[in-house]
């Protein structure tokens, strides 16, 4: 399936990318994270187990075991700090 993946704030800056289109062979948000982590470098570092980040699917925050629908807009970002 194809996903549109967005990065925000510190992750956007460290990855050097705000948005990408991704051919994805997995099922869940956790699968996607594992795939991105496998890129190594800053990806492995920022998405390491124990680092705090959030995943939203179609603009709702989801648990990491959530299934990703085809064509989903997936966003990965640090804990929010507005207000």
């Amino acid at each position, binding site marked *: 399936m194809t996903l549109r993946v967005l990065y925000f704030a510190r992750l956007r800056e460290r990855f050097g990318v705000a948005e990408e289109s991704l051919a994805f062979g997995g099922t869940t948000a956790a699968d996607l994270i594992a795939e991105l982590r496998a890129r190594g470098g800053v990806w492995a570092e920022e998405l390491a187990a124990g680092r705090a980040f959030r995943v939203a699917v179609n603009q709702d925050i989801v648990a990491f075991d959530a299934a990703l629908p085809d064509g989903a807009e997936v966003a990965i*970002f*640090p804990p*929010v700090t507005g207000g």
Partner: protein
Amino acid sequence: MKIRVQNERFDAGAEMAAMSQGRTDIGALASFVGLARDLNEGSGVQAITLEHYPGMTEKALAAVVEEAAARWALLDVTVIHRIGRLLPGDPIVLVAVASLHRGEAFAACEFIMDYLKTRAPFWKKEETPAGTRWVEARASDDAAAARWIKP
């Protein structure tokens, strides 16, 4: 109900006045304004820049306001959150809640702020004398939001 995400400065007083204008049924109007401070985590802050996730931001704010309206009898709610670069002293966020009685207005206003702080996709970056830094999320904000979880 009014929810706005905007670059422009807002006028908290004008927003509050607009909520009660022409109405005689509101007994209580609680509000909160969050402002950019010149000091955070022990170092000077020259400016902050607020990034957000367009689309999700409005959706998340609407969900928080809806949850508040389901918990308390609210007559009107205004939420305005700014994005972009702000200077110390600039207002960042306004939450104003109109209700019949003060207890509900205070509770709903604080609830919306606590949930906004942990659920709305905004991120702050600070300019300090030592360079720029992303603000880290605070455990105290998670704790504040957790107070509202019903048993």
